[in-house]
């Protein structure tokens, strides 16, 4: 029997791994991957709780909204990454330290 706690523990593990990716990687693409992992953990929580809500289906519908938001975030984020790479020739977030043109 799979209870709600199983889902919550898996989701907590995935969230922590995503947080670790964001904190420790030096590549903007890997940081985006970490953010996606955290969003996926949140979606798993939505879906697991939504199992108990047959009237309004809030969990599944907001899981779909979260997927759409994640896709939009990735599209804009990767466009910014490519622009930063064109300007600085690097995508290490440490070395990107000014907003104006060089």
């Amino acid at each position, binding site marked *: *029997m*799979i209870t709600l*706690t*199983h*889902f919550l*523990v*898996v989701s*907590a*593990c*995935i969230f*922590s*791994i*995503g947080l670790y*990716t*964001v904190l*420790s*990687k*030096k*590549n903007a*693409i890997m940081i985006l*991957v970490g953010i*996606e*992992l955290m969003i*996926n953990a949140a*979606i*798993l929580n939505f*879906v697991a709780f*939504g*199992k*108990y*809500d*047959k*009237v*309004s289906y809030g969990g*599944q*519908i907001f899981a*779909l*909204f979260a*997927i*759409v*938001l*994640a*896709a*939009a*975030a*990735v*599209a*804009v984020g*990767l*466009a*910014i*990454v*490519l*622009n930063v*790479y064109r300007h600085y*020739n*690097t995508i*290490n*977030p*440490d070395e990107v330290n000014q907003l104006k043109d060089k």
Partner: protein
Amino acid sequence: MESILFYTFAILAIGSALLLVNLKNIARALFLFFIVLFAMAGLYLFALADFVAITQIMVYVGGVLILMLFAFMLSNKELLKDLQDNSGSFLSMPKWQAIPVVLGFLLLMLYGIFEWQQAPSTWIIQSIENGNNITATDNNIHQIGLRFMTFYVLPFEIISIFLMMALIGASHLSRKERTL
């Protein structure tokens, strides 16, 4: 049988996520990310969310992963920079500093989950008593479509306009600069 499959998917997701973090090769890490997304879609099935699982596979694998591979290939010179270990700012702490932060966060969340398990929310108990939870024989897609067009129509419209804005903005950001 059900729990064996669940544990397989959970171990697949967590294991490949751990391997993803520790790999230096970004292309391999992105393909491991693909496996994590598939395993997460399998986990959604266990929460009886079939439509969400299919959407996850279509959106992430069809769109997001391809975009990430493109961005990786267009900024390819960075492949070796990840190996050298210089740090200064918060965003790129060396690993030994990030590990206690993340472990502390994980322990905090696990503590919260097990405290919550002792006395779960009343609406969940009520929903189980009233037979108000989704069962495997329900027609999920029909119900979701109905809710999208009636109860959740305002968030649905807002999210569609937001998505259009984001996509136009992304294509505007990544256009070629015209010299004036």
